[in-house]
């Protein structure tokens, strides 16, 4: 992997080049929170941010999107508007890039999801490192560092951004800037290592995921689930803000007064009462306790069986979003029998 460095004062110049590779989106401060959105000007970008409200999945699996238009004469015609739009996501944290790598696996495999894949390939990812706050536990989830899934990744080493070039597209971006990037020195590498080590020790939340799937099996009947079911409002906020939750609903919208219409999909949550409801009224997960247990079970146990790791990157968004303060690190630590965990 190519390793270079970019002087911090040249960042504006670099962004002006990057613009030619697509519409630049970056975290922007909005009402006390951060959101990823299209920039009107670079000065809006806030690269020193904690976490955005919504994760990057909104770019690849939009909250609602048309899949097909239906006309009696033509059958189902794929909706392709916007799939070819080129976007550059600037300032992506490691956990969010890691989450995209997880979603990539879900939306490929035996059946490629063409909409997701098209957007993914038309979107460049430029990562930036970060400092953990009291809701981050990406280190526990092995997602505090990514080795792929980005085009460029910038690490703050003081006067410079040490830059990992992840893809040929990233390399093209570097080359397009001419002489902006410089080779790294041993001193830069040492500074990177020093900061990396400090970051690893800065985490205040920790969960142990070793043998966690087995513990989930053993604690399937635990009263913890009933307690959580009493507390949980089934609002689905945790799923909506989760960078690795991908459940979606599919439905047909008919235009009034015609037989034509649209088949669309939109984000769904396993916490919603209708998630496992089948025609005829049978519901395989009727109670809230069963649904929140399912969410934990699927992400921390089922996904491990299927994809080799939990579908959680420790971004802390579900902790921030939950209206009744359900905290995943506390839930996992309680299941493990660890009490008095440091949280807030």
């Amino acid at each position, binding site marked *: 992997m190519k390793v270079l460095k970019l002087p911090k004062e040249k960042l504006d110049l670099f962004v002006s080049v990057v613009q030619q590779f697509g519409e630049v989106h970056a975290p922007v401060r909005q009402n006390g929170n951060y959101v990823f959105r299209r920039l009107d000007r670079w000065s809006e970008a806030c690269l020193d941010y904690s976490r955005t409200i919504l994760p990057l999945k909104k770019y690849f699996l939009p909250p609602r999107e048309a899949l097909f238009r239906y006309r009696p004469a033509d059958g189902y015609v794929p909706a392709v508007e916007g799939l070819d739009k080129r976007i550059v996501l600037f300032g992506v944290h490691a956990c969010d890039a890691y989450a995209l790598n997880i979603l990539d696996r879900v939306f490929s495999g035996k059946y490629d999801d063409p909409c997701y894949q098209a957007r993914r390939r038309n979107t460049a990812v430029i990562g930036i490192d970060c400092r953990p706050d009291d809701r981050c536990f990406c280190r526990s989830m092995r997602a505090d560092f990514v080795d792929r899934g980005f085009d460029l990744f910038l690490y703050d080493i003081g006067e410079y951004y040490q830059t990992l070039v992840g893809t040929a597209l990233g390399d093209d971006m570097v080359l397009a800037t001419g002489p902006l990037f410089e080779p790294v020195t041993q001193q830069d590498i040492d500074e990177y290592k020093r900061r990396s080590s400090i970051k690893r020790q800065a985490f205040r939340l920790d969960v142990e995921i070793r043998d966690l799937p087995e513990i989930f099996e053993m604690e399937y009947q635990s009263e913890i689930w009933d307690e959580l079911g009493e507390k949980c409002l089934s609002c689905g906020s945790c799923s909506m803000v989760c960078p690795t939750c991908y459940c979606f609903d*599919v439905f047909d919208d008919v235009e009034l007064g015609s037989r034509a219409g649209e088949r669309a999909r939109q984000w769904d949550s396993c916490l919603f009462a209708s998630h496992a*409801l089948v*025609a005829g009224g049978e519901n395989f997960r009727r109670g809230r306790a069963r649904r929140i247990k399912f969410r934990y079970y699927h992400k921390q146990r089922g996904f491990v069986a299927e994809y080799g790791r939990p579908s959680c990157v420790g971004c802390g968004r579900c902790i921030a979003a939950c209206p009744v303060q359900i905290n995943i690190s506390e839930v996992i630590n309680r299941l493990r029998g660890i009490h008095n965990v440091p949280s807030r």
Partner: protein
Amino acid sequence: MFQVAEVPTYQPVLNRNPYQPQMARIVRIYKMVEDNYLFTVRFLDDQLAATFRHLPGQFVMLSVPGAGEAPISISSSPSRPGVLELCVRRVGRVTNALYRLKTNELVGVRGPYGNGFPIQRLIGNDLLFAAGGLGMAPLRSLLWYALDNREKFKRIILMCGSRQPADMLFREELLSLADRPDLECLLTVDADPSGGWGHYLALLPKLFDYVTIDPSRTYAAVCGPPVVYRFILERLLALDFPKDRILMSLERRMKCGIGKCGHCSVGYKYTCLQGPIFTYWDAINLPEMI
């Protein structure tokens, strides 16, 4: 200062879109039982109609334009290609809309999906079918596959039960099979209010009293409402049936059929990918399954 050559844009390969329904014509609607019709559909594309193959136990996603999409098990056997027979119960939004369609109208079909029955493992064994209620719908594909490839299997035992003769799915067909010498066909009803039923009058599990089964060389395919599962499983386990020789077909809410939408998961498996055919051993290990 900087000039960038135009970056090529990736275009999705739309002809491989797994969500794309193919239009198919309803060529026959056969009313088997009240609210349980057999729809025979044929793809408009002749080549697709001729080359579409599925495994017994697989399902398709059936689109009724304007109403949506629903998973429907394929009731016809791959040994009889050309058309697909779908036994559909009128129960939800999509199926209600389907029932409003007439012969010659169009639906969308994509698939086949799911694992289907493990045919390679079944070959050379005895097959026991145990269907209660509407359970014949997903089992009929395997039944006809086995009958059409009779030499590949040893004994074939069919147990089918319903509340009364008028409720029995595929009744005429099953009655016509009753005389077949190479099939042990045990049909039963709980009650025979109109009289004239010439077969067993007993609850489905009772049929185990009338047949001997060698569990070590038999695969059992079971489908029915929960109460049927409970009592059939009881009888099978009493015979010391190995748990991985009991095959069951499950249904769940499904929106994509291809392991993306998340709705059909049981425990940690997706009904649409690792199912809908599960062994009883799977079922024990997936807490949400039954």
